Structures are given as structure tokens and as C-alpha cells.
């Protein structure tokens, strides 16, 4: 009897272990624009939360108190972006590459609402997606094609077809000196739409997936016809957008419609090492503005700074976070606490350190971006477990603490 009771208890204890998942609500779109913040909560594996807010968040945000309506995502260091009432993340929650549409449900919680998977093959600058309008977006899937841009509907999350760029690419390829070293082509790195034209980068890769020539190619697609309108070339290779990290915010359009394309590096093996560069394509143009660029190696900046993140532009000023010392080709000094906010005058190229934004480490990927008409800068320093967003007022030349993040590393604020 004693044995039987013990055995029954053991079995009952074990079989009582039933698990249920809470039922998910049906996603409904909201009419009003709202915000969400990406916060990495585990630096080891990059997982974190996307937490919604009714408006631009302010004050102190204890992420642990906001987990209830946030959704856990892998790869939050490479955040997604907001568009037309939804957030689009570059992986599904568990990390499979693709485009994951996330909506707020009736309770204000993020729910998954459609996923387009893409192959794991990622070449050149990396895979990326972007939006032309509410029913048309573009993305790259190097597993499907290395010479085409894929088309999808961001509302239905269905692939619609592709823009065949092969003819234009072949025409360029014929003129590359060392074309025999080209092992693959790829499109990606960044994607942005402006006035019915869609801009993305083209790469010619060698056997090690490095660019074969020292040039930057940007493809311009006409959205109305889904055809290649132009490929513009800059004589120095840059990884614009840095491997599809949307949140580095190297790609921006100012209020005049000028497109600024930034990067800090070309090939990793490039002996020049890190080199913060910004190129420009003027409003209405599909060619680089060859009269203007920013170049850290050229000595554009006062202390020889050559490593910067971001490039938010407004009223003739560009806002970046920059290492206050030159970074040598080994990148050894990147761990130093020398990371400041800067404002760069786009005409004179003068860079001025914003003194009242505290110095910090380079940890968060989020480059300075414009929210509510003001540039926001992330600051992380030795205050473990906290990160800060400072806004900068260009008129007064002063900055202000806007958001304190407790319990994680902010990687992006998206408006959707």
C-alpha cells in the first residue's frame, strides 16, 4: 500500500504538469501614429523587448515595468523600423531572417502579423527592406536573386515579384577593371524611398565577400515602373548603412529632400581602416553630388576624429556620435570611453563637440535621430543598467536629458 501511494503520487505529480499558452488577441491597426522603443535586455545574445508607447517617451522608463505590453525579440541590436501603423523587424521573434510585421492589438500589445522569410545567404552589404508606399515595399533576398530587388506588400506581407536589375548591373560590371575577381553581386545595405525613387546599394563581391573595386554603387529604382533608372558611382568604397543595421541611422533625408548616405568603413581589409564618410544626392537628382562629402580621413574634423555613427540632418546641420580620438586600423580604441555628441555644419564641414552631452562608451548601435523636431543622442557610461537619451537644441546650443532607460540598452526608437 505504501509503495502504491508513493508511486501514484510521483506519477500524479509528473502528469499534472500541463502547460497552456495564453490566447493571443487579433491584431488591429491604429489610426494614430505611435512610438516604440527597442531595448536590448541581454547583451550576450542580443535579445530584448520592443515596447510601445502612446507618444514619444519621456522621463524615466524602467523596462522591467513595461515588459507586459512589449514583445521579446531576438537580434534587437539590429532593430527594425516603423511604417504606416506597424513595426517591421528583420527577423521573426526567434531570429529567422525575414520581415516580421508587428501590430498592436486591442490591448496595446504587440502581436505578430505576417512574416516573409528570406534565405540565410547574405552577401555584400547585407539584406535589407524598405517601403515605397502603403502597399509596396522592397527587400533583398540573396538566396532568390543577386541581381534583383524583391517587391512585397507591407499590408498583406505577400511577395509581389521583383525588379530585375541584371541588365544595368552587367553594364557596370563590364567596365570594372578586375571583373574576373567578381564571385557574386548583391544588393542591400540600405534602402530608402524619396519622391518616387528608391535608392539601394550594389556590391561586386570577391571570393571573400569583399568589394572587388574601391567604388560605391547606388541603384536608383523608379517606383512607378519598377525599373532601374540609374546606377550612380562614387570613387571610394563605403558600406552605406553598415550591413543593414537600420538603427545606425547613416541614411537620412533632410527637410529640403537632400539624401545623405553615411558609413564608417569600406572593406574590413581596407588599409585605411575606419573612415567616417557621408555622400549626398541632391533633391530631384539620381547622381551623387560630387561637390560635397564629409571625410574623416581627410582631416575634416578638429581632433582627427574618423569614426562616427548616425547622421540625422536638419536645417543644414548633421548630428552624429563620434569617437573623440582617431581610431587606428586595428579598431583597438573602440572600447575607450571617448564617445561624444557632435554637430556638423554641412556647408563648412566644421564639427563641434556638444559639451553638455556626457561622454560615454560606444555600446548602443542607435545613431542620433530626429524625434519631435530635435536630434536625440544615446549616452551609456559607467552607470550600469542605465542609458540616457539627450536632445539637443540647435538654437540655444544646449542639450537636455529626455529619457532615462533603466534595465537595458536602447537600440532604436521607431515611430509607426
Amino acid at each position, binding site marked *: 500500500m505504501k*509503495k502504491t501511494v*508513493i508511486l501514484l503520487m*510521483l*506519477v500524479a505529480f*509528473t*502528469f*499534472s*504538469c*500541463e*502547460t497552456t*499558452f*495564453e490566447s493571443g488577441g487579433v491584431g488591429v491597426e491604429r489610426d494614430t501614429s505611435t512610438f516604440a522603443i527597442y531595448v536590448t*535586455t*541581454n547583451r*550576450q545574445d542580443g535579445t530584448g523587448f520592443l515596447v510601445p508607447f502612446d507618444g514619444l517617451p519621456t522621463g524615466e522608463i524602467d523596462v*522591467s515595468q513595461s*515588459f*507586459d505590453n512589449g*514583445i*521579446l525579440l531576438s537580434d534587437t*541590436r539590429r532593430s527594425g523600423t516603423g511604417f504606416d501603423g506597424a513595426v517591421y523587424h528583420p527577423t*521573426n*521573434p526567434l*531570429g*529567422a*531572417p*525575414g520581415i516580421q510585421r508587428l501590430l498592436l492589438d486591442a490591448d496595446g*500589445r*504587440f502581436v505578430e502579423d505576417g512574416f*516573409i*522569410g528570406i*534565405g*540565410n*545567404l547574405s*552577401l555584400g552589404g547585407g539584406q535589407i527592406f524598405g517601403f515605397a508606399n502603403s502597399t509596396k515595399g522592397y527587400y533583398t*533576398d*540573396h*538566396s*532568390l*536573386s543577386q541581381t534583383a530587388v524583391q517587391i512585397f506588400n507591407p499590408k498583406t506581407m505577400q511577395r509581389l515579384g*521583383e525588379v530585375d536589375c541584371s541588365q544595368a548591373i552587367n553594364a557596370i560590371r563590364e567596365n570594372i577593371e578586375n571583373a574576373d575577381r567578381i*564571385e*557574386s553581386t548583391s544588393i542591400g545595405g540600405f534602402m530608402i524611398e524619396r519622391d518616387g525613387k528608391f535608392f539601394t546599394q550594389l556590391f561586386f563581391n*570577391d571570393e*571573400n*565577400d569583399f568589394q572587388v573595386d574601391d567604388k560605391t554603387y547606388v541603384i536608383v529604382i523608379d517606383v512607378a515602373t519598377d525599373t532601374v533608372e540609374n546606377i550612380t558611382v562614387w570613387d571610394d568604397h563605403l558600406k552605406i548603412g*553598415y550591413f543593414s543595421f537600420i538603427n545606425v541611422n547613416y541614411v537620412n533625408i533632410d527637410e529640403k529632400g537632400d539624401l545623405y548616405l553615411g558609413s564608417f568603413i569600406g572593406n*574590413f581589409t581596407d588599409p585605411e581602416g575606419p573612415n567616417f564618410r557621408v555622400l549626398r544626392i541632391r533633391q530631384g537628382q539620381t547622381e551623387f553630388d560630387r561637390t560635397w562629402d564629409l571625410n574623416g580621413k581627410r582631416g575634416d574634423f578638429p581632433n582627427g576624429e574618423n569614426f562616427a555613427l548616425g547622421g540625422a540632418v536638419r536645417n543644414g546641420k548633421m548630428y552624429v556620435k563620434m569617437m573623440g580620438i582617431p581610431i587606428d586600423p*586595428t*579598431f*583597438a580604441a*573602440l*572600447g575607450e570611453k571617448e564617445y561624444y555628441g557632435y554637430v556638423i555644419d554641412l556647408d563648412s564641414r566644421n564639427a563641434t563637440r556638444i559639451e553638455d552631452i556626457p561622454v560615454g*562608451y*560606444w555600446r548602443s*548601435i542607435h545613431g542620433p535621430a530626429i524625434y519631435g523636431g530635435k536630434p536625440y543622442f544615446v549616452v551609456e557610461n559607467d552607470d550600469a*543598467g542605465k542609458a540616457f537619451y539627450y536632445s539637443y537644441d540647435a538654437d540655444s546650443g544646449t542639450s537636455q536629458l529626455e529619457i532615462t532607460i*533603466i*534595465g*537595458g540598452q536602447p537600440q532604436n526608437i521607431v515611430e509607426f
Partner: protein
Amino acid sequence: MKNGLALFFLMITTNFVMSQTKVSGTVLDAEGIPLLGATVQLRGTQIGAVTDENGLFELKNLKAGGYQLIVSSLGYQTRTVPLNISRNQAVSLEIKLRESNQELNEVVLEGKSNEQRKREEPIKIEVIGVSKILEQSTSVPELINQTSGVKVRQSSGIGSNTTININGLQGNAVRFFRDGVPTDYLGRAFNIGLVPTGSIQNLEIYKGVLPVELGADALGGAINLVSRRKDKEYLDLSYEAGSFNTHIINVGANVIIPNTKIHVGVNSYYTSSDNDYEFDLETSINGVTDVFTVNRFHDAIAASYFELNAGVHGTKFADVLDFSFAYFTLDNEVQNGISIDQPLGEVTEEEINRIFSVSYKKNILPNWNLDIFGALSKVNSKEQDVATNTFEWDGDVQRDFNGNPIVTPGGEFVQRDQRIEEESKVARVFTKYDLNDALRINLSSTYNSFDRVGSDPFQIPNVATGIQPITVPSTYTKIISGLGVGLSFFEGRLQSESFVKNYYLETEAPNLGFTENLIEELFFRDFGWGQSFKYAFDDDTYARISFEDAIRIPDAEEYVGDNLFIQPNLGLLPERSENLNVGFTSNLNRARTLFTEVNVFYRNNRDFIQLVPLNLITSEYQNTDRQEVIGVEGNIRINIGENSSIRGAVTFQDLRTRESEVNPNLIDARTPNIPYYFTNISANKEFASPFGLKKTRFNLYGNYLYTEQYLVTPVIRDLEPSLFGSVPNNIRDFVIPTQHQVNMGLTCTLESLPVSFNLEVINVLNELLFDDFRIPKPLRNYRFKITYRL
């Protein structure tokens, strides 16, 4: 001193009564190995005894007459021996017991056998008698998973990488040994996901506290694979075939040349499997995203191990002197990395290992044992990822919309054609000296070193120097020494084991970040200590407490990085862990049919080393966290008659980050990707001579394994699903669901041949099972095994 006097008095008394009427003898198992703890009792009297470690017993002061001597031992069939004793007669007996569960699913604490002494040491050691279930096709990881407090997970099928978690600690915290020697020199030959059961006599699991004879910096525990004895003859031949084109051949033999003291032995295995099981996966194939049923298509493995040994035993010079040469080859296809999302179609691994070893054992004095081992090995390993295509989960290469294969540079994962040559040396000296019955001294020292150099045409050169890090020779030498003192009080009821260990590391590794000093020389020396007690309330009931301040020395890469994207951190501290076990063991009834054991354990893992991303480009190994584990594990076993038994094991371990500089928000969060609650129920029944079949035995056994859902990434404590609780929607994708696994088997043994046949069904319920980071495991599958044993 008092104990010494008591012992002296006991000896005098013993000598005095020796001349009286008595029955003495030895109790042995079927292989002639002495049984410790067997009960010997005269039926109808209170006269009885328990055998000592040599299987000896003695019943004194008997009256002349007829008796029934009942000899029993848990796990063995009880035997009754009729006796007629005359006055002043001294009867000497040799009694052999046959195991009642010889092929049964009794793998832990299966009763008193030759390993019982290990099990009853003050330091808690689980001993799995692997050779006793050789006829079953159960794999080594499955055997280990039937024990409490231990969880083995494999990245996929047979031969895939395994992670063993012992009381919450895993990875580098758990070290592996073969016959007490760290297995580094063996390469992957004795990887527990690969080695068949036929190559092992016993499997010992050390939980958190290691005796000095195991010389390694094991932070969380160790597994020791014990080989067959060299001074006994045996022959084991087995062939196993299973689903997914799995074939395992095992040959184990030891022959003593007649009229000599020379032995010659063979221990070999061959394992191959396609591991091409199917599973459902949401993925994108040819641009279509859906849930597809796919097969693993590039996961085959073939491994062969051949070991020939010869030597002498039982000589004046040596109890055992053995020379061994082994040759190991491995060809392995790699199907995926840590994630299931990306299938790999051409990535392969190869390993060739040549091992020469010599072992020497000698009882220099009756109370002084010496055990020396030395080995040299040369491992050539190759990893290739040179494909010019990438693959879809349908097994085809990725194609563009015109159907042409997409040519891709950079390999499938990380392009490499990496060849590494490693010379490994290991030497171990262990000696035990019993000063008297109450005092024992153990000394151990283990030297382990390797020299490594490699090549890889695809490795990116270090930016600062232009040198490929893999081409720079590195050396790594580790010496772990220990001194242990064993004390015994109150006639052995209270035993104490104290030890101190010295850890010494010397390494030379490339550190190309420093352009003036390409080779970084590192030295490390530290001490650890431990203490354990055992108190026996009676022969069957005892309590134990053990503690170790354990250390894990960082690996070379953790110190100096990979010279590419992982930066050096020469200030890295060793990981430390304070490990405490408290346990109680008892038979709950006099018939010894109900056995229970409860252990509580605590781990305080400080200076936990993790790879921390510094920024978008570089990472660094840092001492980041303090992790704490509080757990309880319990075992219960019920013997129903002589031929059936049921066993249950339950483990709950609460693993949490208590301090973290990197993720302070995750303080008190549960450590992810480690099961924290799991139970196991196993049962077996033996049918002797069923259906009138003489000399035939059937053994039916089953095993049920329950694993509670657990997270694959940490979240704050408030968001964690509670035990058996629901999972919030916003984290559900990161939860490995609750798993129920049932395996069943039937063994038929024809004793007259002697051949046995076994059929085992794994995952009978066809449940979705996962290991590691949501890597699906096979659905229902089958194994058949035929074994010939002499």
C-alpha cells in the same frame, strides 16, 4: 587516538573468537567480483552479518546444528544455502549471487555491487553500471538522463555535440575523465554522445565535489568513464541497427594467455548514422514561407575506434602493467549551427587521433596503492566550409528564379579549410596510503598539456600584423595536484574526507594585438579545498554533506581572444564556485525493497565568464555574473519481488543570476536554456523461462522522462512562466515547451548461447522533443541490438 585504541581492542577480540564455531566466506557476483554490503543471515535467528569491501563475512559463536543461510543483496537474486555445522567447526563458503536485474533498466544505485564503495563515499558519486545493461540499445546520454540532477542534451542525432548539466552547471564547468584521467588526449573518441555503452564498464557522475584523484579544474562536476578490468577475461560482441541507417558495432575482449600472467585485450567500436530524421519547421524555401516537413540531409557521422592493449597482471612488479595503442577516426557532416534556421549542406569535420598510453597499478604494501598513467596522442582535425553554394531545407542548393544554382562566396557559415595538429601529453600519479583503518591519505597529480598549430587559407589575417592567428603555435600546460585525508570515527559510522588542490596553468598563445610581443605567456596558480562528511545511522541509512571551493581556469582564447573580433582580456579571473551537497539515503523497509535518497544542493558560481559584445564589431570575455543554484533531487526505487522494479527520479533546480555587471536588469532571472524541473520514471520486469522456454529470459522495460518548459533566453523574473504555469504571449516563442518522452524495450536472452536480442522504441508517443536551442529531435524511432557475451 581513542579510535585507534578501539580498533586495537576490536582486533584482539576478533582474534580471540576466531577459534570458535563459525561460518565465514566470500560473497561474489556472477563475474567473481566481491560484493560489498551483502546481507548474510541464518534463517530464524538474529545472527547475521554484512560483507565488507572484499565480500567477506563471518558468523561467530554458533551452536552446532542445521541452518538455512540466507544471502541477499539489493539487485541480486537471494540465495539460500543449507548448512550443517559441527561443534568447533569452521565452515568457509564462496557464494555467488546472480543479479536479478542483469539486463534490467536499473542504472543508478542498483544495489550493492563492487561499485558500492564508491557510492557510499562521503563525496556523492552516482555510479551507473553500464556493462550490466549492455544488452540494451539505450545510449549513454539516455542512461545519464535517467539519473536525478543530471541532464544531457544533444544538438541533434547520434554523435552530435552534447551538453551535460550537473546540478545546474554545464559547459566548461563539467570535465570528463576516463579511468580518472582527463579525456583531452582522447579527442572526441570518448565523447559521450558517440561512445557506445559496450566500451564502458561503469559511468561515475560527480556532482559539484571532486575527490583529489580526479585532477582537473572542474567547476560543477565531472563524469568518469570506467573501463573494463584488465585482469579478467571477457568477450562482448554487439551489433545494433536502428532508424536513420544507424549501425553500431562493438567489440570488447580481454584474454589471459593460459599459464601466464599476460593479458591481451581489444576495445573497439564503429558507429555510423545518417541522422536523417524529419521534423516540421517554419522556414522559407524558394521564396515561400510556410511550415514544411523537412529532413536533416547533411548530418551523417561515421566514427571508428580501435584499441589494442597488452600487459601483465598479478606479478611481483605490478598488479597491472598495461600498454595500449588506439586509433580513432571521425567523419562528421554538420547540418546546422546553433540555430535550426540555416541548413548547412557541405560543412564537414574530420578527426584522426593516435593514442599511446601506459598504465601501472601496484599495491606496494597491503595498505599502499600506486596508480600511474601516461599517454601521448596526436590529433589531426579538419573543419571545412568551402562550399560555393548554400542550401534550402529541402536539401537542394539555393537557386535563382531561373533555376540556376546561386554561386556564393564565403562558405555557408564561416568559410574555412582549417587543419589543426595537436600533440597532447597527459600524466597522472595517484597514490593512496592507509595509515590505519581510521586514517587514509590520498595524493594525486595530473599533468596535461598540448601543443597546437594550424592552417587555414581562408582565415582573415590579424589587422595589425597581417598574421593569421591559427598559424601561430600555442602551448597549454595544466597541472592539478591534490592532497586528501580520509578519517573514520565511531567504528566507521562517521567518515570525513578533506582535500586541498593546487591549480597551475602555463600557456603561450598568440596575442597579435600587441605588435611587440606576439606570444603572450600566462601563468596562473591558485588553491581550492573541499570537505565532506558521511554519517551512517545503520547499514542502510546515512547522511552526507560535502563542499568544495572549486575553480575553472579560463581557456587560452578566453584570455587572449581570437585575435580577430574577440579582444584579449589578460585580467580575466578564474571562475569559482562554492558547491555544497547535503544528502540522506535510506532503505525504507527491512526487506530492502524500498529505497530512497534525497539531496539538496547549492552552487555559488562567481566570476562567471561570458563573451560580452563590446560594440558593433568586437567582443571580449569578461567576468560578468554571479550565479546561484539551489536545488533538490530525489530518487526512489521499489523492488517488486525479485524480478521487477520501479524507479523514480525528480529534480528541481533554481538557477538564477544574482549579480551582473553586464545585464543588471536580469538579476534574479532564471539562467536560460537549462531545464530546471525534470522527472523520470522507469520500470522493468523480468520473465524467467517464459512459455516453458528453458534458459531464456525476457526483460521488458520502459522509461518516461518529463521535462518542464523552459526559456532559451533570460527574462526578468516577473515575466517567467511559473512551474506548470501558462506562458505570456509576448515571450512564447522563446519557450521550449514541456516534453514527454517515453522509451520502451524488450530484451530476450538465450542463456545457453549466450546471445540476447533487444528491440527498443524511442519516443513511443511520437511527441515533439527538443534539445539545445529548439533543435528538434527525432520522432518515434527504433533500435535493434544483438549481443554475444561470454
